[in-house]
């Protein structure tokens, strides 16, 4: 004769997607990728050459003339902004005890994240390194001289 009792550690939820688990995993996977992406970004933009002083429109346009940097920055945009917003969500859950404030802050986070992801993606993929009408001394050297 045997007695069956429920396991005291039986999970309360049954079925459905465990979003907190996937969020937890996302922070670790995106974090590892961002180490490579952001340090590559910092080394190319801040350390080699003349550092931040060398950054202007022509510098950025020169990078975005290559699909390599477009994909690099596109990956960095999505991975970093969602990583940061999800981290901020953790802080909101820890410190915003008032349910209304908690909800408002999370809406603001979701809204600003969606807008910036859309804006950044459009900027990367609709960018023209040689815009018509701009003075040639501001443009990268490969632009045709008018």
């Amino acid at each position, binding site marked *: 004769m045997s007695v069956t009792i429920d396991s005291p550690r039986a999970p309360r939820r049954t079925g459905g997607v465990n979003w907190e688990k996937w969020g937890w995993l996302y922070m670790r996977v995106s974090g590892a990728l961002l180490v490579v992406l952001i340090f590559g970004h910092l080394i190319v933009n801040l350390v080699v050459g*003349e550092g931040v002083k060398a950054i202007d429109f022509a510098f950025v346009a020169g990078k975005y003339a290559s699909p390599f940097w477009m994909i690099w920055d596109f990956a960095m945009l999505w991975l970093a902004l969602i990583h940061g*917003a999800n981290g901020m969500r953790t802080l909101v859950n820890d410190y915003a005890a008032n349910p209304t404030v908690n909800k408002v802050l999370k809406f603001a986070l979701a809204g600003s994240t969606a807008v910036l992801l859309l804006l*950044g993606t459009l900027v990367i993929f609709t960018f023209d390194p040689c815009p018509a009408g701009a003075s040639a001394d501001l443009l990268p050297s490969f632009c045709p001289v008018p």
Partner: protein
Amino acid sequence: MWSWVLHRITGVAIYFFLLVHLLDTALIRVSPEAYNAVIGTYKNPIMGIGELGLVGAILFHALNGLRIILIDFWQLGTKYHRAMFYVVIGVWLVLMIGFTPRHLINVFSEGAV
């Protein structure tokens, strides 16, 4: 506990820089003049010191983040979590000692701008 506190503080700081940085970089889509005007505000010693703080925060967050990954996924991670924190501090110091003079020379040198 301090690694946890520092991870939060550096994370929040990096997040708000990221918001500003995405908006300023989006100006490349407006015009070369608009982008050069806003990036020009980065090219002074105060922002140069700020960049030092930003890189320090990113370095700590990255190294401590790798430590968190090891604690979670490496079977000896919880055993060596304290030792790994000292490694994080040590590697952070070495990289900052390497980056700081390089960056400050760029910031304070008379040259291209």
